[in-house]
């Protein structure tokens, strides 16, 4: 798996005007890498994900997956959108099996795997409930489980922990890194939290305001596995300072 965005431009047509949102974005993701994208709200991060997922077709530029253009093609990524988007007419279990249902995989196998992951996601006992009874955090975890069970090598996570409280969030960070290191899946991760970006990532792209482009790219040199103590190290704090400067300049 190798993803490369080459000089992507994109606008939305609003009436007769073209509102430019993406203004020449270049970025790349290697197999097994965890890369975060951070930028001011409304700059076009979600739009970038929609382009990679094939929901929008870029006006200029190429999205290359393993060297081949996938502009406007769908079904090659596991995409968790910013909203949880659980279907009210499906139980939590049926919801997390959506990926398997759509790609007509072996649903029975997927079901067994899903059930075995419910405790880990803190959803045990809610398998046959409808999503209305879930709390905000549980809904997001269910959406994450659904994304995770849609087995594509490339995961796009759009602010997946936005609605979680700090404690659950930290737990999810450790869990996500654990899963990620076991599964060798590549992750592109949108966040508005600098700490989250540093703790999770190998690299971080900082985007400019709309129309967006890559402002700066940072390598995170912290060793893996990451621990909470690292967040107090000089390296960590130095990087955090640099990121804040880039974001709030």
């Amino acid at each position, binding site marked *: 798996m190798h993803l490369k965005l080459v000089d992507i431009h994109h606008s939305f047509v609003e009436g007769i005007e073209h509102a430019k949102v993406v203004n020449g974005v270049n970025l790349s993701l290697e197999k097994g890498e965890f890369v975060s994208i951070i930028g001011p709200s409304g700059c076009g991060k979600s739009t970038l994900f*929609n382009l990679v*997922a*094939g*929901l929008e077709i870029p006006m200029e530029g190429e999205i290359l997956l393993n060297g081949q253009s996938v502009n406007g093609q*769908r*079904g*090659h*990524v596991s*995409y968790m*959108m910013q*909203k949880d*988007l659980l*279907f*009210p*007419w*499906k*139980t939590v279990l049926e919801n997390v099996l*959506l*990926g398997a*249902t*759509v*790609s007509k995989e072996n649903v029975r196998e997927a079901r067994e795997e899903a059930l075995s992951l419910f405790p880990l996601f803190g959803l045990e006992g809610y398998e*046959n*409930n*409808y999503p*209305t*009874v879930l709390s905000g955090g549980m809904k997001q975890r269910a959406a994450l489980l659904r994304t995770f069970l*849609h087995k594509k090598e490339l995961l796009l996570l759009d602010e997946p922990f936005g609605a979680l409280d700090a404690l659950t969030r930290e737990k999810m960070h450790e869990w996500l890194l654990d899963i990620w290191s076991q599964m060798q899946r590549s992750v592109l991760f949108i966040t508005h939290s600098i700490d989250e970006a540093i703790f999770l990532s190998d690299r971080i792209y900082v985007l400019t305001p709309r129309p967006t482009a890559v402002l700066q790219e940072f390598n995170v040199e912290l060793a893996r596995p990451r621990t909470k103590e690292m967040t107090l190290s000089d390296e960590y704090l130095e990087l955090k300072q640099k990121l804040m400067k880039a974001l709030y300049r």
Partner: protein
Amino acid sequence: MKKIHEGVLASLPAVATVALFLLFWEAAVWIWQFEKWLLPAPTDIAKAFVETLPLLPDHVWMTTLEAVLGFLLGLTVALLLAFLLDFSPVMRKSFYPLLLFSQTIPIVAIAPLLIIWFGYGILPKVLVVALVTFFPVVVSVVEGLQASDRDMIRLVRSMGGSRWQVFRLVRFPNALPYLFTGLRIGATYSVLAAVISEWVGASKGLGIFLVRAQNSFATDKVFVAIAIISLLSCLLFLIVILISRIVMPWKYKNSK
């Protein structure tokens, strides 16, 4: 068992109100000595019911048959057309406004026309009921299909889902509550539509029973007919509610 018990308890005040009303009615007729052809007492109506009992099943069966057949026909055609309109934007733009507008046409007024075309048999009545059911259902289903969450559709698309999968997984389930709103309206009016189209001309049915009773000033029998028509309407309505509970458990329960 506990649920049934609670249900009985909850409906007690309503039952008591009805009983009180009937008692008051009975007393009023006794006190003011109303003529029987003007306002019969509930006991008179009950007597008339027992007297006409041998005649009733034929009429009730005919009206029920017309109402149910018409309802099913209206529902089927409405669903087919709704899917077609949903599938084709061109069709939708040209037909949907007409459908919205045609809801204002009083369908039962078309009954005489249908009788002229199709005779005095069951067919014109079934058609009237079908029309009465058809319009609210087609309009609400199209609305429900169109009102689907855009991002839910995009989610299924991003997974590589086909147009059919989007329909099956998102748009159709989203339209179900709308469908049942339309069906409730249809169920409310279908018995009424059958009865009124029988007025225009029929040999059997509660409508013709009602007209005959009225012509001979048998007011007690008119009341019997009214009671049975109300009961039938209620029954059809309840059946629709029951089916909606089975088809959309997520609207009524927390878990499957």
